[in-house]
């Protein structure tokens, strides 16, 4: 009895002792792979395929970072997290970064002590209803039963939206997207609300997607992006600039198809700096010179990732919208590589 108490205490202490984080890069290198937190499954963003290989738009960010660090996009251990477990997983060091449809908010950045390194999808919260319900606006949802994932910005926006419009609703709290989908399809709730991209992705997996519509109202700003723990700026820089490399690559016309050719040297100095044929950006990050080349080669540039996973030619069918390059009237704008 006394022995088990001791052992228990030691384990807890061991966990507590691991609580100080710096040198995440060294840890990742020593481990030989990146621990990346993703969703438990949202089509197009992060889902394991039939062979258990994770794929998706958020997964692409994880793979790019792994490629930047190791030159190997498969050196990733994907850790599925729910809306509720994701922050504890990151804060406790179980994962090195989180790429999971997570909204950049003030309190998560400041109070929860995380650093958002950028935005990989500009989104907003929407509502999905069965077409048969005959609802055309979210303001007509007075008295409706609403499925929401707990531990999200979604549930807070929802409370604000209904209160501001003076209408009432019955929340049905759920843990994962899969559970929300099941409850919604069983009619245990009238409407399912989450990020519009997530709704589109969820609807795409339905047997008859056309029987469901997204209501026109977008009730919030949801800038979704990868995040790391606050306090390890070197590691934050690596994740931030891996994402920027994907965005810049699109802007500069670097694709997975022409990257081999381009890394032989071009007459655009920024491309040369990005791909490591000029300057020493990689060295500054503590990585190899071809770090960004590897990150881009892993799954292609931002546009390629977008079109392959969630773009208009996929069942999810999202248009670029706000997520177009700034040169095309969108919000994507990577700081320069110099």
């Amino acid at each position, binding site marked *: 009895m006394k022995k088990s108490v001791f052992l228990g*205490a030691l384990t807890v*202490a061991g966990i*507590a002792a691991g*609580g100080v984080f710096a040198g995440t890069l060294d840890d990742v290198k020593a481990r030989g792979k990146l621990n990346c937190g993703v969703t438990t499954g949202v089509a197009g963003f992060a889902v394991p395929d039939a062979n258990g290989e994770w794929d998706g738009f958020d997964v692409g960010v994880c793979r790019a970072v792994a490629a930047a660090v190791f030159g190997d996009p498969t050196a990733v251990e994907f850790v599925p997290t729910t809306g*509720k477990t994701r922050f504890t997983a990151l804060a406790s060091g179980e994962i090195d970064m989180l790429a999971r449809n997570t909204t950049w908010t003030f*309190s998560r950045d400041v109070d929860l002590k995380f650093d958002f390194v950028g935005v990989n999808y500009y989104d907003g919260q929407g509502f999905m209803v069965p077409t048969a319900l005959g609802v055309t606006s979210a303001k007509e949802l007075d*008295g409706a039963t609403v499925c929401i994932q*707990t531990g999200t910005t979604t549930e*807070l926006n929802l409370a604000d939206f209904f209160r501001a419009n003076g209408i009432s609703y019955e929340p049905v709290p759920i843990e994962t997207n899969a559970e929300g989908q099941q409850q919604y399809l069983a009619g*245990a709730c009238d409407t399912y609300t989450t990020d519009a991209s997530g709704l589109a992705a969820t609807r795409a997996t339905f047997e008859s997607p056309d029987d469901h519509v997204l209501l026109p109202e977008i009730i919030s700003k949801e800038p979704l992006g990868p995040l790391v723990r606050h306090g390890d700026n070197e590691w934050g820089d690596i994740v931030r600039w891996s994402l920027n490399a994907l965005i810049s690559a699109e802007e500069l016309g670097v694709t997975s198809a022409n990257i081999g050719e381009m890394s032989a040297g071009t007459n655009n100095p920024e491309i040369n700096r990005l791909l490591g044929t000029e300057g020493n950006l990689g060295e500054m990050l503590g990585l190899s010179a071809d770090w960004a080349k590897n990150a881009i080669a892993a799954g292609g540039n931002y546009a390629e990732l977008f079109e392959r996973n969630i773009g208009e030619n996929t069942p999810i069918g999202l248009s670029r919208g706000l997520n177009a390059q700034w040169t095309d009237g969108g919000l994507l704008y990577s700081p320069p590589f110099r």
Partner: protein
Amino acid sequence: MTTLTDPPKESFRLSMLIYDTRYRSMTIQVVALIGFLIAIGWLISNTANNLAELGKEPSFGFLWEPAGYDINQRLLDYNSQSPHIRAAVIGLMNTLVVAVLGCITATVLGVTIGVLRLSKNWIIARLMTIYVESFRNVPVLLWIVFAMAIITETLPQPKDFRGEDAIATMKLGDSVAITNRGVYIPEPLFSSGIGDVSVFNDAFEVSLDLMAILALLGASLVISGLIKKRADQIQAATGVRPTTWYARLGVIVIPMAILLYVLGFHLGYPELKGFNFTGGTHLRNSLIALWLALSLYTAAFIAEIVRAGILAISKGQTEAASALGLRPSRTMNLVILPQALRVIIPPLISNYLNLTKNSSLAIAVGYMDLTGTLMGITLNQTGRELETVLLGMLVYLTISLSISMVMNWYNNSVKLRER
């Protein structure tokens, strides 16, 4: 010639702490205690250091910030602007509701099944065995999820009740609606009620109608008790027991009927309006699933305890009682059960505690209990893991200790008094 010498005066040497059996066990315990305290102290200081390094000083101030989220089942006033502490109280109430409902149902079911398992009827006894074995041997979480899945997937949706050729209809003279979102039953209403008072600086509203009813019920029960006492005295003095059931029933029923009439008591029926049924009391699918699963599961254990308790009373007791001329029902009530209770109650306590703690599995079906509010959404939105979990553990500990205390007190009152 003195051959006898005094035994050498024993002086205390340090090595005796280890080699002398008189001291050794004490030494070991002291060392273990010191080690244990050092480990605890190190743990606490380590945690505090790490939290400080992460910039998260432990503090409970967040409990008074607005929670920001809504809760579906609320026994007290609550909205998204209420503070986190209030959300925690709402969660606590929900925990208590399902724990109380679960304990009552599990006891009734468990006692029935336990007795029936001893039945001489082969089929009934076997059926009860199957029940006990199947519920006991599948984890309760699966039963909870299973119950929820059955409810949401097989029961009709509210919209199925709509229209001319509705697929589903309300039951019991249109007073009860059974849907996959839960069951709607009539609610008691008072048309000329005396309203509510707020207590503790408006923290809670207490219904005066309910208070009046409870007070009257209490008074009636006391009077009914007095009538029984008098009947006992008469029986002791004369050997004849006066018939009192109509008087005892009357003092309870008649004043209550008058009070309900004065308060304008009537039932509010559920009605399909818009997306959902409104009016009536809504027993949510999550509550029903959790309640059912916890009761059925715990009942299997209680049944075994009851069976063991009854089997523990020797057959001689039954034979002696019938030799004295007691009827079988009286033998059960006056001889067997009071003795069996002594065996039954201690393990029963731990089953009540288990049920209460298992209710934290509520999270699996989205029932907003203490784990769902304080240790769930509040934890997640504020990032205060340490504080919320500590607080939650403290509350569960308090609930469990209270249950133990009450049950131990009851146990003492039925236990064998040695004279």
